């Protein structure tokens, strides 16, 4: 019985690895089974063009829970977070809006666009800091079921009720607004400068099939504010070596704790006997036995692909079938002979060490959404661009560069279906749009990789290419993620658990689902 374990983790994405590391540290004999040839899921670094390293899918880090970094000693295992210094939004008139890593400098920049907004910016930041702190306790807890009378659920609800009461009227009302409004409407209450509102509201649409004027998008805005680095909220960083280094560090921590990590081991099915899991069988026919099986895959694969439907209650299957994925974002990765020279900020400078946001106005974003609403990719999309080689010189050969371009909207369900020609047309739209702001871009491209949601699904297994394993929409959060009554990492099959971003608190290289699921499993044992 060489394949006998205490726990099997399906999927070597960052949450699966976090889960395995925590279980192994608790003394469990754990194996992680990854379908691909490399670990990391959507947090991988690959040399898709020789000499040039890319964070192929996820590309920045902020939400990764600090307690995981400390518990698993990730810096000792090779993870190093470097600061992203700024965010620049080029404008069609040749000007720009920039937010720098210094409050005086940012105020001075914002002031030339709007003196009112320069004042409001500080107070808005303070309120969002409070909001992020208000929601932080939710992130670190297993969601209680509000309809349950079980002692654990009641205790959790009492704790939450007490927490909400302690917020005070001003913060509670602000939180209510964030939960119900669109990001554009919410920001309209604070600011007047269009590019500022657009760049901020872009945080509210990332990874969802919503526009900045869609109600509920304000919450996603907050979700992105919750990232903390060194205790400071709303701090974004870049992992040296790309996001694959995060996965590799977690994998190293898991290995050091005794976990076995197997690649090219695609799980075909979870084995169930008398309502209880007994292990898994691979595509190759190889079997693994364990009383605990944890799926790091998204809800659709966890429930609809890996187990036979007769093992699950109809109402759960129905909820999972309706769980919304609707991948809406793509990625363009470039190898470059030189950095893009932005018309608004000529030359190479500090701005290349930060992010560029193509979000000149809320109308621009909403129009980009309009295209997707009717089944087309945005002709002029929203983009978030970083140049990892400017932060970590190891990412490209000396003097050369890589660019990571996150693009939205690009629907999974495109009219007529995705073809190679359509993918390249989408890539052209991205490059054409960006070249309007940096005319030397086209001649600098040495290699171009274009990824649509269909490509992301095909390679990483993320259903419909949704980067969060399901939209971060309010009806899919907390005790409803991924389904009512099954938000506590358990499934109706005894011994079968879920630990991916489809569970609370959701996606974004956070690692929290993997850790919370491990807590649940260890408490159940």
């Amino acid at each position, binding site marked *: 019985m060489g394949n006998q374990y205490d726990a099997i983790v399906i999927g070597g994405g960052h949450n699966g690895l976090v889960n395995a590391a925590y279980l192994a540290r608790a003394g469990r004999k754990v194996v992680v089974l990854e379908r691909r040839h490399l670990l990391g899921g959507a947090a991988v670094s690959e040399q898709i063009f020789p000499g040039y390293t890319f964070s192929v899918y996820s590309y920045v880090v902020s939400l990764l829970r600090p307690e995981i970094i400390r518990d698993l000693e990730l810096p000792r295992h090779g993870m190093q977070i470097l600061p992203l210094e700024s965010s620049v939004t080029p404008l069609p008139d*040749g*000007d*720009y809006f*920039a937010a720098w890593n210094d409050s*005086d*400098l940012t*105020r*001075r*920049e914002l002031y*030339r666009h709007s*003196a*009112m907004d*320069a*004042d*409001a910016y*500080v*107070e808005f930041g*303070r309120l969002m*800091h*409070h909001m992020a702190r208000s929601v932080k306790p939710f992130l670190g807890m297993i969601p209680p079921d509000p309809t349950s009378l079980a002692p654990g659920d009641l205790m959790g609800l009492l704790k939450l009720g007490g927490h909400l009461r302690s917020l005070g009227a001003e913060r509670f009302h602000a939180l209510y607004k964030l939960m119900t409004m669109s990001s554009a409407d919410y920001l309209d209450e604070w600011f007047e400068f269009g590019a500022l509102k657009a760049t901020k509201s872009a945080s509210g649409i990332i990874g969802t099939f919503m526009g900045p004027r869609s109600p509920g998008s304000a919450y996603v805005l907050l979700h992105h504010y919750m990232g903390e680095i060194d205790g400071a909220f709303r701090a974004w960083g870049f992992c040296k070596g790309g996001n694959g280094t995060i996965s590799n560090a977690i994998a190293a921590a898991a290995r050091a704790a005794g976990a076995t990590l197997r690649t090219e081991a695609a799980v075909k099915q979870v084995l169930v006997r008398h309502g209880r899991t007994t292990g898994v069988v691979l595509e190759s026919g190889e079997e693994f036995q364990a009383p605990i099986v944890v799926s790091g895959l998204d809800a659709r694969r966890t429930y609809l692909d890996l187990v036979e439907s007769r093992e699950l209650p109809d109402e759960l299957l129905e909820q999972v079938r309706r769980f919304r994925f609707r991948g809406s974002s793509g990625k363009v990765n470039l190898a470059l002979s030189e950095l893009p020279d932005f*018309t*608004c*900020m*000529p030359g190479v400078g*500090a701005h290349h060490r930060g992010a560029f946001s193509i979000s000149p106005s809320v109308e621009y974003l909403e129009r980009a959404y309009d295209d997707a609403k009717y089944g087309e990719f945005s002709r002029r999309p929203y983009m978030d661009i970083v140049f990892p080689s400017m932060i970590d010189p190891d990412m490209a050969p000396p003097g050369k560069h890589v660019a990571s371009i996150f693009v939205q909207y690009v629907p999974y369900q495109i009219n007529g279906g995705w073809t190679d020609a359509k993918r390249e047309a989408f890539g052209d739209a991205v490059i054409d749009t960006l070249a309007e702001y940096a005319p030397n871009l086209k001649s600098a491209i040495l290699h171009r990789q274009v990824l649509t949601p269909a490509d992301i699904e095909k390679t990483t297994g993320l259903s419909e290419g949704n980067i969060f394993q399901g939209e971060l929409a309010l009806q899919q959060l907390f005790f409803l993620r991924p389904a009512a009554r099954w938000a506590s990492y358990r499934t109706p099959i005894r011994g079968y658990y879920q630990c991916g971003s489809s569970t609370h608190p959701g996606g974004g290289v956070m690692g929290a689902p993997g850790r919370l699921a491990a807590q649940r499993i260890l408490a159940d044992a």
Partner: protein
Amino acid sequence: MPGRVPHNLKTTPFHARTAPLIQGQTWRRWSGYAVASAYDWTHDREYSSIRNAAALFDVSPLHKYRITGRDAARLLDRMVTRNVLKAQVGQVQYTTWCDAQGKVIDDGTISRLKENEFRLSSAEPNFRWLHLNAFGLEVAIEDISDSLGALALQGPLSRTVLNEAADQPVDALKYFRVMDNRIAGVDIQVSRTGYTGDLGYELWIPAAQALEVWDALTAAGRNYGLAPDGIWALDVARIEAGLVMLDVDYHSSHRAMIEPQKSSPFELSLDWTVTFDKGPYNGRKALAAEKARGPLWRFVGVEIDWDSFESLHVAHDLAPALPSVPWRSSIPLYREGRQVGYASSGCWSPLLKKYLALAHLQAPHFATGTQLEIEITVEHQRRRAHARVSRLPFYDPPRKKA
């Protein structure tokens, strides 16, 4: 215009003159501007010039707003804690302004330049707050922070220097009054105000002609010991004068992260800036309730007992080590072993020969003469020296108002 914002600190309109003078390169930040901590290597001579001759400070980083229109006085009166409607043309009022809970947002001066024209100067930006308060009023608000330079000319000989430089004599200009004047052909305003607690003036100068005025003033001051002064010297003088400083001694209620970080005017011992002899204004209700109940905190002076301070050092075979520059940090204050407050700034007063601090004390420990202990670190060990609550200002020369 691409690339408009350079990546260095803003400079004041007087930078071309101040930059060559700063021997120790002690630049520091003030509202995003580069200003001098001291021009000499140390601030000793600069401080002396404030109390002995005349000192020239570049205070251009102050935020300045021009408020005009039919409802200009109404706007300010509903915003601040003093009665602006009563102000005469040519009068300057020092005041605080509060949120609805009666907590201080900022403090500054309001100059009534004409019947319907005011200038507000403040420590922090207030453009948005003015606009929010101006809803429905017929008023124009202009941020003139960058277009208007400001110099403070302070010290016993400041009047003499100003009279030599200016077209109009300033002898008749009373304390907290403002007048039009002209220096080197430049139309300016002179107010008899300052942050040193001494005889002194502030000059409000169009940024484009700032250097002409600087040159004329320094030429006029040559025979009177006029010295350019940095922030360290100013800090010593304002501590001696018992003047509160935003972001050092208290936090704006708009920026404070938690309630205990906010202060009311009563808690800052600025009772005299709060009037109920006027219509509704921001915070009035809360302030009235607080006045009736009595403040929970007071802002006071603290004198550190020299003998006690010295003996802590002697115990280590050391001479007493005084702070070389004024400090701005939170230092615990105790009474009979229990913490009853904290000092927020402090310095050695070269004039009074006393170690002074400005402090916040809880009721009922703030009565003048109350014996306290202040934390002092000697040879890496935390000790407590005796100290005493003192009346503010520590130093108040008659010439200030004469």
